[in-house]
Each structure stands twice: as structure tokens, then as C-alpha cells.
């Protein structure tokens, strides 16, 4: 695998959020999904920067919808996983499983 193809931790979280949200995956929902499930205080800027990067890599595809009143009359950009994105997510999961194999958790030490 070439350098830059592997998913970063936050990229992986964003991809998983997009998978979970299905057709309803857009910036705000992705931010909320990650915040609710991980307890992280994620900013909309970080989410958009990552969505943009993943789209540039060809792992996500973006589509626009019409403006709505609850968005102050602004359009929405939704994201879906591409085939390359699915392969990257599967590979990242397999990498994680391989690395976790044989380890016992929780590791000794403080947990936050």
C-alpha cells in the first residue's frame, strides 16, 4: 500500500459515521454521530476538512440537495461511500483486527 492510502484515525471515524448514517450523511450529522459515540468535542471545520480530503482521495462521493428553511435557505452536501472507500474501510478494520489479535484488554494503566 502506497504512503497516503492508509486511513488516519479521524478519517476512519468519519467513514464509519458516513456508513452508519447512510443517505443522511452530511457535515452536521457526521459531527453529531462522532461526538455522541466517542464523546469527542469535534468541530465542524475538522469534519469538513476530513470529508473534503476523503472526497479528493476518491473514498467518498458528494451530492448536493436543495436549500431548506431549517438550514437558513442553504443547500446541503451529502456524502456516500464509494467502492474504493468500502475497500479502504475493510482494509483498515482488518489491519486493526490483526494488530489487536493476541492482546488482552484493558491494558494495565489508567484509563480516562
Amino acid at each position, binding site marked *: 500500500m502506497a504512503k497516503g492510502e492508509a486511513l488516519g484515525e479521524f478519517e476512519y471515524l468519519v467513514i464509519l459515521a458516513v456508513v452508519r448514517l447512510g443517505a443522511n450523511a*452530511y457535515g*452536521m450529522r457526521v459531527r453529531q454521530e462522532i461526538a455522541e459515540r466517542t464523546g469527542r468535542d469535534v*468541530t465542524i*471545520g*475538522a469534519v469538513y476538512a476530513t470529508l*473534503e480530503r476523503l472526497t479528493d482521495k476518491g473514498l467518498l462521493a458528494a451530492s448536493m440537495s436543495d436549500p431548506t428553511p431549517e*438550514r*437558513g435557505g*442553504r*443547500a446541503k452536501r451529502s456524502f456516500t461511500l464509494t467502492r474504493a472507500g468500502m475497500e479502504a474501510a475493510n482494509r483498515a478494520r482488518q489491519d486493526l483486527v490483526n494488530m489487536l489479535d493476541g492482546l488482552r484488554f484493558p491494558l494495565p494503566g489508567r484509563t480516562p
Partner: protein
Amino acid sequence: MKPPGWAQLVLWAVAGENEAEFVMGDLHEEFLLLCADRGRSAGSRWYVRQVFRSAATLLGLRFRSGEAAHLLAAALVAVAMPLLLLDRLWSFVYSHIPLKDGLDRAPGFWAANVVCVCACAALCGSLAHSLPRAAGVALAAAVGAACALWCSTATAPVFYAGLAILAGPASSMAVFAWRRSR
């Protein structure tokens, strides 16, 4: 119910044309949910915090798309260069007046600089064709004026420095608003 207008303006300035529409829509949607849940002041606080914590990332995104680099280059050429040229001209003028060389500049010289900043920034603002771009031009004009002040040969009074940095963006936005209203 609307989010704080000045925070929206900051977002327009940093997010750029590609992202501003979607980011603002998303924040607006969540702002309304928060207002209904926890009240307007909590919603506004959350909105402002999101804008400021996202500013650097969104600005980085704008730089990567090339848009911010163009704006910054335009502001440097259109605002900073004329100011620097004026500064050199005033230095030259002072050096040719006996007993004036090295003295503080008269208010008229500073006023001419401010007029120049306003005119250049207004010209840039009149060329902007959308609000994100106009806000970006305003921000870049402030950066351009600050750069010119930094490189100035004379020590600028604080009042003048503040005026030069703020008057440029204000005139740029004013001209943009005037053009749009027509």
C-alpha cells in the same frame, strides 16, 4: 431565530466559496436545535465557539483550494504595495525638507495613507462577486494593511494603525453591499 451576524461574517471570510454555504447551513441547523433545547444564548455561544475553533481548519482548506492564496496575493498587491509606495514617497519628501528628516509625520500624510487603503480595498471589494469572496477580500485587505504597516519606515501612531487596518475591510464590504443592492 438567527445566529450572531458577526460570527456568520467571520465564517464567510474564512470558509471560502466552496465550503461556506454547506458549513453555514449545517451550523444553522444545529444552532436551531440547540436554541430549542437549551435557549438562544447557549445556542449563540456554541455557534461562536464552533466558528472560532473551525476557523484555522477552514482557512487551511481555502488555501489548499487555491482561493485564499489568490485573495491574499491580490490584497498584498492591491493594498500593501500602494501603501508601501506611499510610505517610501513620504520618506523621500521628508528627506528633502530641511530639519524635517527623522521627525514624526504630519497627520495629513497618515490621512492620505488611510484614503489610499480605503480606495484600494473598495476597488477590490467592487470586483468580488459573492459574499464569501467579499469577506475574504476584506480580511485580506486587513492583512495587507497590517503587512504594509509592519514594513513601514516610520513609526505609525496607534490610532492610524487601527484605522488603516479597519477602514480597508469596512470600505471593501461597503462597496460590495452597495453594488449588490443595485
